[in-house]
């Protein structure tokens, strides 16, 4: 074990989707900039898009949708709690990004005239663009990283962003998960692209890595941002997804919807108008699941053979290709049975929901020199294309920031303290294992934090998390790999506490199931039409405050405002 000291202008943390884009765009903006991309995995196959992607879920393409329509759709889908300027920055740059990816060789579905073949999945507009050959995504990004001469360090787990006297970014620390060498990387700026916090709750299967998100994404970025003094926004707006039961991956209604597939109850009847994932949709799903009409299924068995074959080709070769293998073992055949679905454990994710590190329309966090893009940031319903667009914005804006700032002064005490924290589990020969700490935290998250939310349960959870924090002081790691799991367990605990504190703060219900608070079952626009922000107090504790919604730039009328409240199929409607 040694200590490695490096110096860069910009460090991008996480090389999944948004990260490579941020690094490439920073280099394009200033080729002299010294840019390092760090990933705990290997950027060749890391992140949510490790095996590619089924399609763009939120493409804003002229002729199919306008940025204004998109901003409206997301404002309504997210119950009004959005910074419209930040959503607009995504929407206005969406089409350029699609063309950029097209130029780089990403294959999107096009019609006979060469126009992008956009499909309707959302409640109001059309934004889904299939990528039947989406499995090449990581290769294409890797080529661009090489071309732009971005330096890449794989298998380094970043644990902290260090700040200087004015609270600005001065360094990034971490360790190698194979050698336990520690890294101190001096830098002027950093972009967090660490993905969702997808390992807070426990999958119903009990398998720790059986998560919807790539399990590398355990909330390290959220924890790092918090400890660096950044604000985190609307964390109580959990991510909860409708997934294939036990497999815990997308079924996937976005792909099958345009072919005629739909979410059905046990009678094979459609019960929601629209399969686009929103809190309200999840609420309807939950009600059906828990009511007499459960379980809930994805229904494809009424489709023609060629259609089913086409669906199989997409779903079983792309994104989560082991779906086919799972179905085979279960004897599931799309032709004969409906696929059983379930709701996932909770997480933070702005890709699908709206919870994450607070960022504005420039991708800036509240810490000078710290940017965030993709699932870990706070721009709602951003999905893959949002990670790319904000990756670009963060890369370019961070490059501009670097031009105006020198290297800061690193506090030697901070470095020593973090080195001690990282290496502590390796120094012990006895104690609790990272597996035990992680399992117990995540099991308690399921028991006490999974909605519906109840104050008394949340209070118990907080007390139990405190106990685990004490226990975690005796965690031991037998090797560098286990050390990675140990440090992740600390991030998971931090996120679990953040999820509890943010939820208890917002004393109303909003976002359907995501923040369904039984003690406060009504939506309360008078008091809670605002963001909630979580940050670290001077005493080192989690504190909450309200932030007013930024003035709308795209007005929403009364009728539109409630569109997502009307998802349930009318009672006596015919099954589709």
């Amino acid at each position: 074990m040694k200590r490695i000291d490096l110096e860069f202008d910009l460090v991008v943390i996480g090389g999944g989707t948004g990260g490579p884009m941020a690094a490439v765009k920073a280099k394009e903006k200033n080729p002299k900039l010294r840019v390092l991309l760090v990933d705990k995995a290997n950027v060749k196959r890391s992140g949510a898009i490790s095996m590619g992607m089924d399609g763009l879920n939120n493409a804003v393409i002229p002729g199919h949708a306008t940025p204004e329509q998109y901003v409206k759709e997301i404002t309504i889908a997210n119950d009004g709690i959005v910074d419209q300027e930040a959503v607009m920055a995504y929407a206005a740059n969406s089409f350029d990004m699609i063309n950029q990816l097209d130029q780089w060789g990403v294959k999107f579905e096009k019609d006979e005239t060469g126009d992008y073949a956009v499909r309707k999945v959302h409640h109001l507009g059309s934004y889904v663009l299939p990528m039947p050959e989406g499995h090449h995504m990581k290769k294409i990004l890797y080529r661009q990283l090489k071309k732009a001469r971005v330096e890449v360090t794989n298998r380094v787990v970043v644990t902290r962003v260090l700040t200087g006297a004015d609270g600005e970014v001065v360094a990034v620390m971490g360790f190698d998960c194979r050698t336990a060498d520690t890294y101190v990387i001096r830098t002027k700026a950093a972009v967090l692209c660490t993905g969702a916090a997808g390992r807070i709750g426990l999958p119903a299967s009990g398998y720790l890595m059986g998560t919807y998100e790539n399990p590398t994404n355990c909330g390290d970025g959220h924890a790092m941002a918090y400890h660096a003094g950044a604000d985190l926004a609307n964390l109580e707006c959990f991510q909860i997804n409708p997934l294939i039961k036990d497999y815990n991956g997308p079924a996937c209604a976005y792909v099958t919807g345009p072919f005629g597939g739909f979410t059905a109850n046990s009678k094979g009847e459609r019960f929601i108008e629209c399969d686009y994932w929103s809190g309200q949709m999840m609420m309807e799903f939950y009600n059906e699941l828990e009511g007499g009409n459960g379980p809930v299924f994805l229904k494809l068995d009424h489709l023609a053979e060629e259609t089913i074959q086409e669906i199989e080709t997409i779903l079983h070769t792309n994104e989560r290709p082991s779906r086919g293998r799972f179905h085979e073992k279960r004897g599931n055949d799309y032709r004969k049975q409906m696929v059983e679905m379930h709701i996932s454990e909770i997480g933070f994710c702005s890709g699908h929901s709206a919870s994450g590190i607070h960022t504005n329309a420039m991708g800036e966090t509240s810490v000078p020199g710290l940017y965030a893009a993709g699932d870990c940031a706070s721009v709602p319903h951003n999905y893959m294309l949002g990670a790319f667009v904000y990756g670009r914005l963060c890369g370019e804006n961070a490059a501009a920031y670097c031009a105006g700032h020198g290297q800061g002064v690193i506090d030697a005490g901070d470095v020593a303290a973090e080195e001690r924290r990282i290496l502590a589990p390796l120094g012990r020969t006895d104690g609790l294992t990272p597996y035990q700490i992680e399992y117990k935290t995540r099991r308690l998250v399921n028991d006490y934090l999974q909605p519906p939310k109840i104050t008394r349960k949340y209070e118990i959870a907080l007390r139990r998390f405190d106990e685990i924090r004490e226990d975690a002081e005796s965690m031991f790691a037998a090797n560098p790999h286990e050390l990675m799991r140990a440090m992740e367990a600390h991030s998971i605990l931090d996120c679990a506490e953040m999820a509890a504190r943010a939820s208890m703060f917002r004393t109303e219900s909003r976002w359907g199931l995501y923040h369904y608070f039984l003690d406060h079952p009504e939506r309360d626009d008078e008091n809670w039409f605002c963001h909630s922000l979580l940050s670290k107090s001077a005493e080192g504790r989690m504190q909450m405050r309200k932030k007013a919604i930024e003035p709308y730039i795209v007005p929403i009328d009364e009728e539109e405002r409630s569109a997502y409240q009307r998802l349930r199929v009318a009672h006596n409607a015919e099954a589709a």
Partner: protein
Amino acid sequence: MTIATTQTQVPVNVDNDKCIAEKGCTVCVDVCPLDVLAIDMLTKKAFMKFDECWYCLPCETDCPTGAVSVSIPYLLR
């Protein structure tokens, strides 16, 4: 207190006859996002060292000799 090791059947299988790790191949170990594969120093073959699999398949897809096969972990199956 002492530490016990609990046995578990892992989801990733490597066909030793096909694996060419002894010739320097480490592809599956390199691409696994969770870093759960390793080369056995004695047999000089790849194997699953930690039962922490996302059943995502880069190891199987990228192996040059088709030596890796991934099953869905038993708890999910």
